[in-house]
């Protein structure tokens, strides 16, 4: 495959009370051109770290421990910092969780967008300004010309997130990473922003990596789903398939614990008891085992690997038994 993003064996370590431990453990996935992937997991699953690792925005002592990232057939994980700057914003753009803190409070938003444009193309200032205003219009900011000169604090959360999106797109990237981009917004605004991203991705042929803990968001938006737990991928595949028939116990539990307007309030709401293990507490064996209702001895002694089942990848030692599969699928 010569297009899109390929991530291979990415690992990220974080400092803990017992030294550096892996918080992202050897994950691999593909982001084909024009497709969108939702990366879901609980807090602490390592999903945000993955995103930052791809952008090389990690700061010591958090560091990348290994892995390769290939973009359009070229290895980008071994570029020098100088060279990588072109990738950031230029090939991969990022949208952040809290728009209010993601922007420089003292700089007009127009200027912040222009800054990004100028960093990635050779046009001159006035043309950049025009481009910026165009972008603002594209993301649905009213009165784009006036808004160009406004400061971040003058906008509401939803509007500001649109500005951040505009800024992320200003370098004309091929890939957009959205790190919990809608978490800080209310539900209606969430929906609008997601639709916006969807539309923009379609118009521009972007690939989108959406990081979220919200399955509903994932369902609304993505083509493929990557489920992460304790730094590892536990299930990965086409999203509709996973939703209709989840194979990994964790995915199953996640889907069972969703609430929507059809749930029966007379019964207790399904939750997954317990907590994910912290990086320093991870031992051999399946990380989910302590909370898994299908746990057997083998789960604690052997590490599960991603195996191909039903056209997707699942990392569960008992996947076939649990799902009454014949093993040939």
């Amino acid at each position, binding site marked *: 495959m010569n297009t899109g993003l390929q991530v291979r064996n990415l690992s990220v370590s974080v400092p803990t009370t017992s030294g550096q431990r892996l918080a992202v453990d050897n994950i691999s996935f593909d982001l084909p051109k024009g497709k969108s992937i939702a990366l879901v997991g609980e807090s602490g699953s390592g999903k945000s770290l993955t995103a930052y690792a791809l*952008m090389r*925005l990690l*700061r010591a002592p958090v560091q990348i421990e290994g892995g390769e990232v290939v973009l359009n057939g070229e290895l980008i994980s071994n570029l020098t910092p100088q060279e990588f*700057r*072109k*990738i*950031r*914003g*230029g090939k991969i*753009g*990022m949208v*952040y969780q*809290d728009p209010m*803190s*993601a*922007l*420089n*409070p*003292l*700089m007009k938003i127009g200027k912040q967008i222009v*800054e*990004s444009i100028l*960093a*990635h193309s050779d046009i001159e200032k006035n043309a950049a300004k025009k481009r910026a205003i165009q972008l603002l219009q594209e993301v649905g900011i009213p009165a784009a010309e006036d808004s160009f000169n406004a*400061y971040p*604090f*003058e906008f509401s959360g939803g509007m500001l997130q649109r500005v*951040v999106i505009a*800024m*992320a797109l*200003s*370098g004309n990237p091929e890939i957009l990473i959205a790190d919990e981009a809608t978490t800080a917004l209310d539900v209606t605004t969430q929906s609008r922003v997601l639709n916006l991203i969807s539309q923009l991705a379609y118009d521009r042929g972007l690939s989108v990596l959406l990081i979220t803990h919200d399955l509903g968001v994932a369902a609304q938006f993505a083509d493929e789903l990557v489920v992460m737990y304790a730094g590892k991928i536990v299930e990965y595949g086409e999203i509709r398939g996973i939703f209709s028939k989840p194979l990994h116990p964790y995915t199953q539990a996640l889907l069972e614990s969703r609430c929507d307007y059809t749930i029966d309030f007379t019964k207790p709401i399904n939750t997954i008891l317990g907590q994910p293990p912290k990086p320093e507490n991870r031992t051999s064996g399946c990380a989910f085992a302590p909370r898994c209702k299908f746990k057997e001895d083998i789960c604690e002694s052997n590490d599960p690997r991603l195996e191909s089942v039903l056209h997707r990848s699942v990392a569960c030692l008992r996947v076939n038994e649990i799902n009454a599969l014949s093993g040939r699928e």
Partner: protein
Amino acid sequence: MILVFLALRVLPGDPVLAKYGASAGATPENLDALREEAGLNRPLIVQLFSWLGGIAVGNFGNSYFSQLPVSQLIWERLPVTIELTFLIVLLSCFIALFSTFLSVRKPGKKIDRFLENLTSLGLAIPNFIVGIILVITFSLIWGILPSRGYVPISENLFENLKLMILPTFTGAIVATPYLNKYLRTSMLELQAAPFVRTAEGKGLSHSNILYRHIFPNALVPTLTMLGLIVGYTLGGVLVIEYMFGLPGIGSLAIESAATRDYAILQGVSILIMTLFLLTTLLFDLACGLVDPRIKSNK
């Protein structure tokens, strides 16, 4: 602001109280007569109010000894102090900016730690000792700069500046560490701010981020601090003027304190504190200019 005003009220009380023990070096009858004339025998409160009232009109009363109006004395000597304070603040800002940028580009490395140690040292040395060392080095050993004296700008700008060099550096060396420490901490803290990460995510260069994103944000709280520093410099110029023979209101304060000329002393003190207040206000306003969020709230 109210607080300083409170302090202003405490101040006149002190020398007034102490006056009763002051000796003007004369016979008891003369003393009494003097006191009567200066209105010292009236009840304290009355004195206080009449004096405050006088100030409002710009009349500080007359010096006990020379009988010249205090306001005239102050007026003559004020420009010197203003010039000195201004130069000190200017130089301090300059040095602090320069050294902070050097420091912050490579935090934790040799140059940063060296400057940090220098800063700690600077905080511990009294300003007059800095002055002494400078005088010894530049006036005595190397003989390239004068150590005393003053020439008004109107007479000779070059001489004026030459005579101001050592006093300015003395004051600046003492004020810079505070600025430095504060600015550096602000900027380092900001390195971890989310919007800095966004800027990196845009692919901007490190120095670009430093100058155009981090620094302006660090500037706002530093401006407030700068106001305070100017205020304290106003206190420090007292000694600097004294040792370098500059005829400003600082040395006036010292002279009047030594001779117990309370009229002058009161006047000068009030003035200095008012200047302090004004500067703090000024810098607060400046904050509003730099930070659009504050502006809109007004």
